[in-house]
């Protein structure tokens, strides 16, 4: 029997881009997992509710090893939505789909609305002010606990403080004219020249180009100071601003 098309409405298919966290594990996985646990322990809920992509480019592993790794991650409540850079021989049924074409910045970004994503389904907290070709976003009020400002297209400037439990994720640099108590992540799509500036540093976590530093890793002398942070090689350098 052939199926009859009874409903003339077409199916709506929409494209939508999301900002995913990319995890690039290295071998041996056991050591890498220890470091991941360390990050998770010090930054509770880091991966909760986020799309996570596993980047296995150039890793000499077989399907069983990959399966084990995914199971280890699932056991930590890190659910993998896709795998990047995996050879077809190690992927297959029961595995997350292969992802290709991840872009640092989407082509449409230039014509699209900027993204302010608030987790927990809240509508945007603040009216973003967008200037010159969407390369920067200015927020004129404090960012409150529980809010995330995500702007992969460029710099984010906050005129106000960023509360404990709030986060700013920018493709470019992050400028905070207030106290940074939450998290700031600059160069989130892979931009090692991005910087973080804040009038007063009390941060829970700062990250540039995926390299992160927790509060306890920061020199105590920097707390409460006006600080800029940048990347030199694989380490975050901080310096007081005068």
């Amino acid at each position, binding site marked *: 029997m052939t199926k009859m098309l009874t409903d003339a409405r077409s199916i709506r298919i929409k494209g939508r881009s999301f900002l995913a966290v990319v995890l690039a594990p290295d071998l041996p996985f056991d050591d890498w997992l220890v470091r991941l646990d360390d990050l998770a322990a010090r930054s509770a809920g880091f991966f909760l509710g986020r799309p996570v992509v596993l980047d296995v480019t150039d890793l000499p592993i077989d399907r069983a090893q990959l399966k084990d790794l995914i199971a280890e991650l699932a056991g930590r409540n890190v659910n993998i939505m896709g795998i990047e850079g995996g050879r077809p021989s190690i992927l297959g049924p029961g595995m997350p789909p292969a992802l290709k074409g991840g872009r640092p910045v989407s082509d449409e970004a230039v014509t699209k609305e900027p993204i302010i994503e608030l987790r927990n389904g*809240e509508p945007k907290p603040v009216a973003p002010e967008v200037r010159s070709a969407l390369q920067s976003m200015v927020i004129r009020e404090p960012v*409150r606990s529980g809010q995330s400002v995500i702007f992969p297209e460029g710099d984010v400037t906050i005129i106000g*403080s960023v*509360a404990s*439990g709030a986060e700013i994720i920018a493709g470019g640099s992050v400028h905070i004219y207030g*106290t940074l108590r939450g998290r700031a992540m600059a160069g989130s799509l892979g931009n090692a020249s991005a910087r973080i500036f804040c009038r007063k540093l009390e941060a829970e976590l700062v990250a540039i180009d995926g390299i992160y530093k927790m509060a306890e890793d920061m020199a105590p002398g920097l707390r409460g100071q006006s600080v800029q942070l940048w990347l030199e090689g694989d380490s975050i350098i901080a310096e007081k601003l005068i």
Partner: protein
Amino acid sequence: MGKVIVVTSGKGGVGKTTSTAALGAALAQRNERVVVVDFDVGLRNLDLVMGAERRVVYDLINVIQGEAKLSQALIRDKRLETLFLLPASQTRDKDNLTPEGVERVITELKRVFDWVICDSPAGIESGATLAMRHADMAVVVTNPEVSSVRDSDRIIGLLDSKTMKAERGERMEKHLLLTRYDANRAERGDMLKVEDVLEILSIPLLGIIPESMDVLRASNIGSPVTLADARSAPAMAYFDAARRLAGEVLPITIPGEKRGIFGKIFARRAA
């Protein structure tokens, strides 16, 4: 048209219900018509603090479901004839609190009363967001400790995003009411400093209510502290806060410190 105020906090047990009753009774003593509305469906308390628990026949849910008229559910205070209570239901499911129903009730109350004060449940779930939905201004009740301050910060974010005012692109007026402030613990450095709380939350200060046995005594006899013992320290702090809500500019004193020094600083911020 009356003003709708939500008394909210995020964190539980910080003094929302106490403050709703105290501010309501203080405003009613200025001869303004006040209704205090309990949004804490299933865990109602406001009737007890108001001493009206044995007079509840109908409640907010009954009115929303069309089982009673608003006039039947309103309970007039025995001591102050301009003070009314709209109780919450203790038995019904909180899903009966529908957005349309709440909107209808608040609109009707605004026509009759000068002040509609909504006592929010703790948390950030639908009860709390419905209580704040139609507010013109918010009283954010905070204790001087980190968890309460962080929860208040979260609630301020919701006030700026989930309310009608926010959705219309207007600014929600928010005031910080610092409660259970213990001068001895402050002296020992066991509590957050007033300046620190203000710096973190960056909203104007409505008042500082001292920790006091007078609050417990008043609630045990079923009376807002501003009615039970108008000369007590917490009552006087609530009276001042009510005057500020009504638009007066008064200096604020930190309990246990000399009047004037800090008063000058905060009066400016609270204005």
